[in-house]
């Protein structure tokens, strides 16, 4: 599945680029690529920024190392992590 076909991945990609001030086109981010160590230059502070963003926007906590490893494996993995755990959506 690509960013274009999964709306949650596309949304997360836009938020990631915006929140972390990344100088790249969201369309070019590979949803299967690892978030860390794949040339995005993301570090521990970025991860914490994403943790807060995901809890605030989706009600999903990432509060231990194992959850972090699972959630931040890739943007696709992050979307799956959120879908599994998000509270029943009012929308």
């Amino acid at each position: 599945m690509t960013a274009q076909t999964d709306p949650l991945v596309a949304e997360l990609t836009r938020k990631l680029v915006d929140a972390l001030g990344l100088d790249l086109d969201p369309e070019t981010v590979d949803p299967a690529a690892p978030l860390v160590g794949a040339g995005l230059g993301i570090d521990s502070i970025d991860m914490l920024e994403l943790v807060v963003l995901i809890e605030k926007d989706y009600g999903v906590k990432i509060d231990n190392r194992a959850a972090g490893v699972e959630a931040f494996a890739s943007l696709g993995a992050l979307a799956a992590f959120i879908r599994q755990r998000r509270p029943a959506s009012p929308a």
Partner: protein
Amino acid sequence: MSQPVPVFVTGIGVVCAGANDVGELRRQLAHPVGRFQIPTVFPVKHPSGELPAAQVVLPAGTDKPDLPRTHHLAFLAARQAVAGGPPPDAIVVGTTTGGIATTEAALEAGIVSPEAYRHHGLDTVALHLADAFAVRGPVLTVSTACSSATVALSIATKLLRAGLAKRVLAGGADCLSRLTFHGFRQLQLVAPEGCMPMDANRTGMTVGEGAGFLVLELGSDERPALAVLSGTGLSCDAHHATRPHPEGTGAALAMRRALADAGLEPAAIGYVNLHGTGTPDNDAAEARAVRQVFAEAQPPLSSTKGLTGHALAAAGGIEAVISILALRDGLLPANIGLTTLDETLDLSPLRVPMTAHVSAVLSNSFGFGGNNACVVFEKAPSPIPPAHGVERGRSPAGDAGVPALRIAAAACLTARGGLDETWAALLAGESPVGLVPDTAFAKAAPAAFVRRLRRLPRLMLALAQTVQSANGRTVPPGAIVAGTAWGPLAETQDFLRKLFESGDQFSSPMDFVGSVHNAPAGQIALLLGCQAPNLTCSAGQRSFGQALLCGSLEIASGADSALVVAAEAFEPKLSPLFEPALAASRLLSDGGAAFLLVPDDNAPGARLRWLGEAADGLVLLDRIIENTPYDAVMLAAPAGQEAKLEPIRSRLARTVSPERIVPYPDRLGQHASIAAAATAIAARAVAAGVLPLAAPPVSLARRRLLLVEIGPRSTVFEVFA
């Protein structure tokens, strides 16, 4: 290096969780009781904030509702330290919070009167102490996050050694605030069960508060010495904005520098008070650093943050007091909070308090920005040498003080752009007043490097990069010293706004990391790969003057150069609240300047010399203008306070003609770091032989300018060629 000059500790004072004075702290260290509590000094509005903190409990009726808590805690500890001795003549305070707790409440209540924010500036803590103890000399404020108090001790020591003071009150103070409490929580650095330094199951720190102060002097007949402060060492990791270098290289460097300053081998140290916050990263990095420095011969060591919590800027002051108690009473405290030792650390912290005679101790403090500071105390000789070195306290304008430095490179940023553009505008009779255009600092560093940075760190990086690259210099400077009155305001504003909007549930970890006053200087160190001492001074309009003084002290202590930078970044909501000068001026402005300073040599170019800071500007000027003829005097007072200039003007008029007394803020811009930009213009002016700031421009036959700043205290420095 010559024989180190000993500095005597003649007074100590402390307030921290569990202890409101030195006696209570000593009892707690011998028999620790009690742990931490959910904070009550501010409302905890969301269950996610129900985490323990190390809160000071003041006796009923002794709090001061009209005074910010940091100021009051500082006073309570400082009062103990100065009791029974003559008043200090200088103060150095380390703080990160200043009046933030009061500001938070006022902002949330929507108060828009600047009066409500008059205690916001970090400097107001030291000014409060200066008032309380009638201190006439320099009153300095340093903010290097969690190493602040130990850096303050280092600066105080250098002030004494330079003969700029006889008796310095130095230490640190911070109070619990929503900014720090929720900031560390959002960084996932707060331990839900309270901190357990060096424990295998440690999960983080406990945010605390308090104050710790020492009185330091070169000798005294008045009070017996409690200890000798024999050395300090500063370094910067230049590795990451918040995480320590995993190998602890910066920390080890600071420890080694402190030992070298004291003239001691590691084997002489009988106890180490660890920084030991209880975060997984800090304790692991510090353990590596300790093993590098001490190898197989580890002295007894412990972190005492399991008792005091992490009092941030105050931590080094509180732990200095604990270290002095170890020397004086032979009480080596236990590593409180430790249950299951983390064997991977390969350290053996004290499990119970130990009684032992020790002759030297080391105390570690490390902070955000990779700012490391260490201090060595030794047992005081008994009796101490009579009035040792007291005659070293010489007048600021006498032959002592700090040396003149050559300006190897200068840069400034104004509404016109850089120094060349600003100078050309002044020559053409055009005004450089206003906000710095983004294009003037856009290319400071690679886009990936600055992507998370807001206006102040970008301004400072651009200024630093300009002076560093000016002479094709490839080695990093021997010290980096920043000055900023207000720090990174955009980051502070956004952090608090998001926190308030979410009912104290969420805010941005990135903004918290960026909001500390020393974040920009840490970024400069990262960009330049500079592990040298890294300081940030924050003292209102005196921030640049204090950065210049601290840079000069580092060079006097052996640094081959100092990069001194001062800047302010305008923030639409907070700047007008914090800085009445901005509200009073017609045009908003920001920017600043940077200088690469080297010891005076025979090379051509302008020289810059810090001459003094004092409560009374007239006393300072009398000593200076009678000895040295100046072409002109550049004069500054905050907008709306120009009346304060009149007595200074009439005194100057005895030796300088009126058209050569040039008030500059309304011609260069009204912001707290405008003195830095004025100094860059002055350096260009003495080289060109003309000062275009004057109307009409005046020629500079002697090529010598005096700069005078009037405010709560006065600062004087000179530029000559």
